[in-house]
């Protein structure tokens, strides 16, 4: 958010004022406090506040009267009424008199955060309108690096699609920056005041995925003391990012389609229908259309998700980006490790530009990080990029030869402790014994 929003807290109870004051400072707002309606009015005369939060019951002038007085001078003031004892009558009165919202103390932390985001959104959007700002410029994309026409084209598509509410599928090999692009879309959309919630579908089993996505009700099963929000609920007013969408089961595909169509669902163990207003962005490194043709991905879901498709080309198709990415990652990791920035040898850079990067930008990033760790602190040299050297050698090695070397290395690492070595290799002990026999390994050989 570009502008600091200012808040005035009006409450006669010091502990409430202090708690709210701290909360807002930590959240990046500028905040002030008043202990009575009268002193609030005096403060409002000399300073403009974007949001005013006031208690109802205070000695002297009460919160409802304060609301009416402020509204009389400043019609569009955003005033939130807080009360310890909500009654329908006062709530109706407050809203009639123009309160932005009416809330009961104490708040659920998440409700307070949502309330303030809502109010902030109203302020920011009003501001944008008065400035007649058109979405001509992308913001919050400083971390997307690249000079190539390919990446510029991707950013153009991001800009076009961001302001719409359409579902988007981002395709590209692993490590090409799909999540980064999803964030950029969200950050440039009118939903940016609310969260972008990510789900890594591939990492979750089917039953876990269900509870992750939909949440569960208090008491849904033994030990469920608290209600748990699912990702769809967390993404209310925001965006949900479903990574590795191709990995979900057919059953989940049906569930997902239903939620996308109705924008409503039930928490596990619940009977109340919950609605959530979210936008969907998906990512995959697979050819979904082909999966549809093979009957492994539902066609109806495919069409619902695939309203807009953004393809990110692999790094080897946009080698112009490599030098700027290298500079970017050097800066990033030298800062993170509190080191002076290093340079890169000409030869090392051209080696990188010759390389194919099957792991794309993520692989390049890891390589640079590692090179800074092992390097001489001044310059990245070819020998600091051993992955490159190894791949060119090992590319001619057979799988068997690679296995032989790897198993041997792991055995030595664990001092021939078979259980631990087997665990590290993710095989059972019998399999490991067979490999030892097959390759004729002996301890200390």
């Amino acid at each position, binding site marked *: 958010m570009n502008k600091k929003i200012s808040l005035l807290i009006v409450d006669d109870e010091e*502990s409430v004022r202090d708690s709210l004051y701290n909360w807002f400072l930590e959240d990046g707002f500028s905040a002030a406090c008043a202990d009575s309606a009268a002193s609030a009015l005096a403060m409002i005369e000399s300073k403009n506040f974007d949001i005013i939060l006031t208690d109802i019951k205070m000695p002297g002038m009460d919160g409802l009267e304060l609301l009416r007085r402020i509204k009389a001078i400043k019609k569009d003031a955003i005033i939130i009424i807080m009360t310890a004892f909500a009654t329908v009558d006062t709530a109706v009165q407050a809203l009639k008199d123009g309160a932005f919202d009416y809330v009961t103390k104490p708040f659920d932390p*998440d409700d*307070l955060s949502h309330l303030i985001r809502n109010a902030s959104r109203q302020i920011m959007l009003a501001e944008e309108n008065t400035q007649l700002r058109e979405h001509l410029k992308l913001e919050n994309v400083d971390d997307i690096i690249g000079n190539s026409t390919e990446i510029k084209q991707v950013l153009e598509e991001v800009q076009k699609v961001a302001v719409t509410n359409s579902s988007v599928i981002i395709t590209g090999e692993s490590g090409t920056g799909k999540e980064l692009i999803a964030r950029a879309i969200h950050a440039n959309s009118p939903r940016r005041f609310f969260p972008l919630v990510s789900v890594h579908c591939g990492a979750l089993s089917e039953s876990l995925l269900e509870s992750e996505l939909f949440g569960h009700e208090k008491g849904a*099963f033994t030990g469920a003391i608290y209600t*748990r929000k699912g990702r769809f609920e*967390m993404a209310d007013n925001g965006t949900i990012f479903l990574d590795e969408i191709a990995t979900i089961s057919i059953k989940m595909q049906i569930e997902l389609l239903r939620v996308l169509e109705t924008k409503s669902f039930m928490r596990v163990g619940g009977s109340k229908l919950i609605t959530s207003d979210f936008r969907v962005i998906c990512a995959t490194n697979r050819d979904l259309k082909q999966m549809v043709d093979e009957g492994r991905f539902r066609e109806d879901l495919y069409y619902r998700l695939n309203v807009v498709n953004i393809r990110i080309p692999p790094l080897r198709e946009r080698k112009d980006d490599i030098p700027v990415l290298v500079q970017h990652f050097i800066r990033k990791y030298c800062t*993170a490790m*509190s080191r002076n920035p290093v340079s890169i040898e000409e030869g090392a850079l051209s080696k990188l530009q010759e390389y194919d990067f099957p792991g794309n930008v993520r692989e390049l990033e890891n390589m640079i990080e590692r090179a800074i760790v092992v390097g001489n602190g001044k310059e990245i040299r070819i020998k600091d990029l051993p992955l490159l050297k190894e791949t060119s050698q090992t590319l001619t090695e057979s799988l068997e030869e690679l296995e032989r070397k790897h198993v041997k290395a792991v055995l030595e690492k664990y001092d021939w402790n078979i259980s631990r070595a087997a665990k590290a290799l993710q095989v059972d002990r019998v399999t490991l014994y067979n490999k030892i026999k097959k390759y004729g390994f002996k301890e200390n050989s």
Partner: protein
Amino acid sequence: MADMTIKLLNYGYFEKKMLSELAVGVSSEFEAEVKIVEGYLDLNAYFDAVRKQYNGNQILRYIDSHDAADYQKLVGLFNVDLFIPILTYIFGQAYLGGKSAIASGYRLTNERYGLTKNEALFHARFLKEVNHELGHCFGLIHCHNPGCVMQSSTYVEDIDQKSPHLCGNCRNLFHEGNR
């Protein structure tokens, strides 16, 4: 920042192993020496009978009254349900730019939400919570960079969405503010 010391005061009966893991995570994030100290405190004094929770404001004030001769920052580690008057619960809180913070593991376990116990996940969440509150002690405010530990988290799934680390931006602010 060579001689920064952060003290972790264990009021939650957490195990040594978990605490030393925590210390490693805190130490590397804030480039500081971390000391773990056992704390003794009668929490009854801070129990609110109506809310059946412990008053986080009062506990933080108590922690902050400690003599700060041998450390720069102090985090009290608890295992009880904390609240502040205006919120139904908190995971922890800190004095912004101050020297003290508190964090509780109470609402960070899977069991509390009816899910299978996951010790590693609990430790990860606790580290994130402690680093977050320490970030506030170092003057950092909430950050909107996805993955940054200074993102605001209002429920436990929120915590899972972020890393235990400061983003580049927050790290720069941390360095600037604590030179």
